[in-house]
């Protein structure tokens, strides 16, 4: 009798991976606010201080620019620091170090010194944390050459992509999401190292492609299951890597399905969907049966009140409605 494979949370997958990499490589150190004694604001680093000690799991003062920059400098001497920033919003305090330094040091100095640092933080709204604690500004980092920006959507990817990020020689922005930490999935045992820069078709389909990432992947899969009950076949592409962007995977998909909807957590204007749409104009124009549509966050500072928050954030209903509109516009019948 085959037992169901055990499922673990996204949080546990991150915790297990940090432990495995700390064990494997003495150059790996963790830095961040409240990651040690407090065990992390979201408990990603639970137990690690006790296991590895304060030299390797280092609590920092509230000084994002200082400790992110320090991680960059330590990486220049060959350490592999993994920095936790409490949320994406606070990464803005460190953006000079990330964009003006971390992203530049290898190329600007003529390829002499790599900067193998990982900067982890969750994005995401929907927790009634109001405007300053709910932003999805991953596209700011995805815009910058010199950075790698990745966003796993499942516990298995969380493991394989964090392992890849820690072993990568470049600065990697590792985007998590508050809504994903408690989600569960099967995580293969043993060493798993993802290839940074690759998207994945996470559900195959024939009628329309939903292109998304991070939390959006879960929503898209849920919507795809609902449409399948009606005999409509959606393909779901999880971008996984926002920089570099794997254009070929979603171009190839849209050439087959002829219809595309982008689901993104960021604000609409100048967002990830804009980049995807522009790419599809070049790679799939002749294959498209309808204009590409985008489902993105309403362009307001996210309000606290639940009805307003719900109205502003893209959800499964929004995606399903837009999928139906695109199908209807092309006279699709299942």
């Amino acid at each position, binding site marked *: 009798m085959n037992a169901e494979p055990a499922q673990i949370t996204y949080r546990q997958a991150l915790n297990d991976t940090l432990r495995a990499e700390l064990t494997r490589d003495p150059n790996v*150190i963790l830095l961040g606010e409240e990651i040690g004694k407090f065990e992390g604001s979201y408990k990603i680093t639970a137990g690690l201080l006790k296991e590895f000690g304060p*030299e390797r799991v*280092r609590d*920092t*003062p509230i*000084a994002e*620019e*200082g*400790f*992110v*920059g*320090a*991680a*960059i*400098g*330590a*990486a*220049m*001497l*060959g*350490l592999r*620091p993994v920095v936790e920033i409490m949320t994406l919003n606070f990464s803005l305090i460190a953006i*000079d*170090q990330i964009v*003006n*330094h971390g992203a530049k*040091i*290898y*190329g*600007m*100095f*003529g*390829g*002499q*010194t*790599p*900067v*193998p640092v990982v900067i982890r933080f969750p994005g995401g709204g929907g927790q009634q944390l109001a405007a300053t604690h709910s932003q999805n500004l991953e596209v700011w980092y995805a815009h910058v*050459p*010199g950075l*790698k920006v990745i966003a796993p959507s499942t516990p298995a990817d969380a493991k394989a992509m964090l392992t890849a990020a820690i072993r*990568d*020689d*470049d600065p990697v922005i590792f985007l998590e999401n508050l809504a994903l930490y408690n989600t569960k999935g099967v995580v293969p045992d043993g060493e798993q190292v993802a*290839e*940074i*820069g*690759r998207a994945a078709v996470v559900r195959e389909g024939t009628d329309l492609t939903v292109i998304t990432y991070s939390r959006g992947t879960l929503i898209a899969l849920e919507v795809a299951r609902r449409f399948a009950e009606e005999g409509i076949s959606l393909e779901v592409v999880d971008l996984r*890597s926002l920089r*570099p*962007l*794997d*254009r*070929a995977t979603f*171009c*190839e998909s849209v*050439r087959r399905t002829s219809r595309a909807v982008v689901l993104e957590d960021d604000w609409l204007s100048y967002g990830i969907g804009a980049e995807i749409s522009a*790419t599809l104009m*070049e*790679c799939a124009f002749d294959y498209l049966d309808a204009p590409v549509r985008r489902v993105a966050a309403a362009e307001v500072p996210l309000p606290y009140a639940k009805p307003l928050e719900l109205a502003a954030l893209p959800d499964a209903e929004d995606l399903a409605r837009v999928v139906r509109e695109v199908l209807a516009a092309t006279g699709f019948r299942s």
Partner: protein
Amino acid sequence: MSEEVQDARQLTDYYAQMVLIRRFELVADQMYKRARIGGYCHLNLGEEATVVGLMAALREQDYLFTTYRDHGYALARGMEPGRVMAELFGKSTGVAKGRGGSMHMFDAGLHMLGGYGIVGGQIPPATGAALALAYRTTAGPEAGAVLCQLGDGTTNIGAFHESLNLAAIWKLPIVYAIVNNRLGMGTAVEAASGEPDLYKRGASYRIPGERVDGNDPVAVRQGADAMLARAREERRPGLLELMSYRLKGHSVVDPAKYRSQSEVETAQAADPVPAFRARLLQADVLTEESARAIEDDAEEKVGAAVAFAENSPDPAPSELFDFAYAQDVPNAPRALPGDPLEVEL
């Protein structure tokens, strides 16, 4: 070798380095005005004694981070003048292969981990380099340390204070050396800093501070030696303030109209290069003849540096993406402006 002879050699060497920097910077100024050098160009003119004194205190195992006013540090840390000039010329033989220019001298082998163009940008990474040293090595007289050079204006930025705090709580082997040339671009220290005695600004972090005469390379070296020794042996950070003055504008294109004629005249009278020359002549360390030989040698070296830079090849546009990433990954962009997207299907 007697201590006196060794001292004489050392002092002669300091003078030679100061003269080389002076000559290099005067020629860089000319080359900028002849459009051989692009972008910004900030010169160490007037700061030669600070550069040479600091670099004399630094050992092979130590690491250096500086501001964008970095040509002198590159030379005194041991980079070939030709390769430094080639970097200014944007040539592929430059120390950063022409990718960085004047503000971004770098040599991993010499542990010169960069001139930094963003004010204060070097301070957190320098602090992190000290963290890496503390993590990997044990304290002792031969342990490595980090020297983080910065300007007076930088002491007002958050990165300075956050870094000093980290260095204090983590007990890091680092010395922050402020070259106080009295002006942050055109703004006087007194107008910009609530505590204009900058060496006192470590007090909030219990970091000991000291002010020394930045026109005297020996005083600078002694000040830096003491602080670096504490960093190596006790893992205590230090804050060293070097009183200096830049003889020209903030950058080559700045006529420096914000300072009075008398201020400039006073500074010129205290110019550290002729002052040190006179001192060594008086102490019989140098003779008029040996001083001239040093000056001729510097002129020759800088002339050769210009020739090397002139004759070096430009980087080829085909090399544009060579250092996009340290580790290749699929789908890294390679499009030039106007190119169609490369999507391999």
